[in-house]
């Protein structure tokens, strides 16, 4: 890397910040501003909010984020390998293949444990559902 590669990125950040800052400031100066208590209340389809925002989310969001961390790490390794795959030959392919199989296994485990089912009804689909009359016939 050379500093020349990153100079335009720094300039783009400055330009983006400058553009945003100036236009937000100008809009703030020009546009009308007469707040009323009703206007500033949290949006609730026109009625008065009865309760605070939900402060708790399903734990599945956490599992998905965790799975994402794992796949992100994998992607970084795969990129590093793919750039130089010619040098590593079949040994490299074997190493990456084993790594990926282990990750597929991780995914299969999470899948099997139902962490990827977002609908409760879907998660319970393996519960044996036997109609009463069928049960009598079987007996």
């Amino acid at each position: 890397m050379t500093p020349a590669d990153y100079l335009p990125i720094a300039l783009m950040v400055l330009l983006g910040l400058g553009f945003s800052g100036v236009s937000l400031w100008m809009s703030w100066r020009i546009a009308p501003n007469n707040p009323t208590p009703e206007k500033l209340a949290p949006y609730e389809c026109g009625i008065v909010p009865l309760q605070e925002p939900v402060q708790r989310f399903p734990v599945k969001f956490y599992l998905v984020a965790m799975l994402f961390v794992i796949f992100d790490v994998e992607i970084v390794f795969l990129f590093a390998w793919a750039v130089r795959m010619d040098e590593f030959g079949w040994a490299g392919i074997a190493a990456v293949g084993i790594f990926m199989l282990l990750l597929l296994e991780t995914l299969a485990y999470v899948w099997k444990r139902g962490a990827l089912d977002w609908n409760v009804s879907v998660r319970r689909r393996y519960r044996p559902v036997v109609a009463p009359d069928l049960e009598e016939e079987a007996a």
Partner: protein
Amino acid sequence: MHVSFEQWLTEIANYVFAALAIPTLVGAWMVVTSTNIVRAVLYLVVTLAGSAALFIMLGAEFVGWTVVLVYIGAVIILFLIGIMITRAPLGSHEELSHPATVKIPAALLSIVLFTVVAWAVADAFGGLAIPPDVGATRTGQLAEVIFQRFVIPFEVVSLVLLSALVGGIALARKDEPEEPA
């Protein structure tokens, strides 16, 4: 290798370094002193972004962007979602600040840790200069090290990741007890 302060001031790279290092340190300070847990996590983003920029400045582009992708883009998001799913206070919370009996040993411990790490780094790499224009080879060098010298640790990494997820699921399952068969 000794550099006088006047010499230090003539090098542009030193100013860039200072511009990156100061926000990194301030961010780190705010992470531990903030009483709002979401703010603390966002200050951690500042610190990580600063360290990523320092990696890039040292010529380790691949490592720098990996820090952004994996730490800022994934791990911190995991923290944020973790805060959202627990009943952790979203607003400011005084309990996050510990009494002096905890603060002082913690401060001493971090000073000792800092000294040890700083001494080790200075001892190992103190006299080395960063060769200019090495970006193109660094990614390849990194790949060589991972896939030739450290193949076994590389494979073990996937097992570590698997065990992390098993733990996560074990924690999550307590939330929803198994249906009786």
